[in-house]
């Protein structure tokens, strides 16, 4: 009888161990493995991208070549849009607009530089957990929960292939994605490959006659008058990771571009001279989990973009001011 009770206790403990959340440290390790897999493996897959209003099929092809991450992402429904990531640039083919947007890569350089790893301060903003999650695409998965510690950012739930750590499914939403998802990606096929042929990472769009719009940095750019703006308030944990001048479609004058990150999500703040016609009404738009909000501040247009709730962006935009002396400085992150 005693032996049976011990067996029962051991069984219950084993089952509990299999389903309970592991330590945050283990979750972090899974995130690091995922980041490394995404950046270093050759793979080709089909997935469904869903938001509250629509669902669309996509194809992704990723190849690592001499330490560079090359990529092709194609919309298989409707628009036929494609994004190609070459060694030096990102090309966005918009056949429905007869336009190709070209942006220099910001991570050009060594593989190590391109390897993103979860920021050390990630756990200050999110609770991390990992547990077993059954099977997806016939593979065992680990489910990593990245739960925000406040309502100013989204949470994530990631289903990672237990063998390769490649993400097979991801859900973005409030909490750790348990509620109404804002956006989700579900792979219906994912093949890890030894080799990806050239043709698979070349665009299928015939861009003859398209307008090519070059964005990004330009050595000839002169610091725009009035540069030196910053948001006075940011959600806790967001830190300035880059600042640059950025050319954008439709304007010969570069925008000041500030990028802040909490280790998972990023917020970009663009500041550019306002139109001669005077201030425009504030505008907002939503693209899955990414939001954008534009408003006028002292004769300039401030546009804030990020994978955070729209309310967060509004708050950031409302705090953007020109800095005394016209030089950029890291803004205060709210305690």
């Amino acid at each position: 009888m005693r032996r049976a009770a011990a067996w029962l206790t051991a069984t219950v403990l084993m089952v509990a161990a299999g389903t309970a959340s592991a330590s945050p440290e283990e979750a972090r390790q899974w995130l690091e493995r995922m980041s490394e897999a995404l950046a270093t493996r050759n793979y080709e897959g089909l997935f469904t991208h869903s938001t509250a209003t629509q669902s669309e099929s996509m194809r992704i092809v990723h190849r690592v070549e001499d330490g560079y991450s090359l990529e092709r992402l194609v919309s298989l429904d409707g628009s036929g849009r494609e994004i190609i990531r070459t060694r030096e640039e990102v090309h966005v083919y918009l056949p429905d607009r007869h336009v190709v947007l070209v942006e220099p890569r910001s991570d050009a350089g060594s593989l190590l530089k391109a390897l993103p790893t979860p920021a050390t301060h990630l756990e200050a903003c999110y609770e991390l957990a990992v547990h077993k999650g059954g099977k997806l695409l016939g593979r065992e998965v680990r489910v990593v929960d990245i739960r925000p510690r406040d309502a100013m950012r989204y949470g994530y739930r990631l289903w990672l292939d237990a063998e390769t750590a490649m993400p097979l499914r991801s859900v973005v939403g409030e909490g750790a994605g348990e509620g109404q998802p804002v956006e989700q990606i579900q792979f219906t096929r994912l093949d890890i490959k030894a080799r990806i042929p050239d043709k698979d990472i070349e665009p299928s769009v015939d861009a003859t006659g398209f307008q090519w719009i070059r964005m990004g940095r330009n050595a000839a750019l002169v610091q725009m008058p009035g540069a030196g703006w910053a948001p006075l308030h940011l959600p806790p944990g967001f830190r300035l990771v880059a600042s640059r001048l950025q050319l954008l479609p439709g304007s010969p004058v570069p925008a000041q571009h500030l990028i802040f990150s909490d280790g998972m999500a990023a917020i970009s703040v663009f500041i550019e001279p306002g139109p001669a016609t005077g201030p425009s009404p504030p505008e907002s738009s939503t693209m899955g989990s990414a939001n954008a909000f534009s408003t006028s501040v002292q004769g300039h247009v401030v546009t804030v973009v990020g994978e955070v709730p729209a309310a967060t962006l509004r708050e950031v935009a409302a705090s953007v001011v020109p800095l005394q002396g016209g030089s950029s400085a890291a803004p205060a992150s709210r305690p």
Partner: protein
Amino acid sequence: MTDQIREQVSALLDGELPPDEVGLLVRRMERNRELRGAFGRYSLIGETLRAPGGLVASPAFAARVSAAIDAPQGVQPGLRRPAASARARWGRPAFAAAIAASFALIAVIAVQPFAGREAAVVAAHTAAAPSGSALGGEASPTPARSQRLAGYLVAHSQFSSPIVRQNVWSGLLAADPGLSRVSYETVEGP
């Protein structure tokens, strides 16, 4: 002009046209004089039937609407500064208010430079909407506006983590629900 477009014009005047169809219809009206004329006639009929106390608008009313549409650039209509409005600004205002908003809308179309038209359209439209939230309206952005939004996203995504970038790029490639549903917001005046 097809029955479907007639229905859209009628819905616009009744304040019942879905926001994402407003921009399309407005652009169609800009190109199509017959459609603009029909809009004026429908407005006249509506005003005649529903004007308080049975007042009848002047016979030249439709002509004036068309004239407003064709007015040269530079004539700024007097837009009211809109009150904070509900997101559901298309929710059935009184017909007279809808008419007033719609005429303000058309007049603005006629005098705004292209890049600012749709923002002005919705700003004008929301002038007659009931008060509520700060959100003013939604419309299809111009191609230039779409490209600019795409530009912001691409520049931004360079600094996203790989898993987040996959989301951002997928959103950009999708049949742009967000890009075609830009909300133009209005703010409370002093």
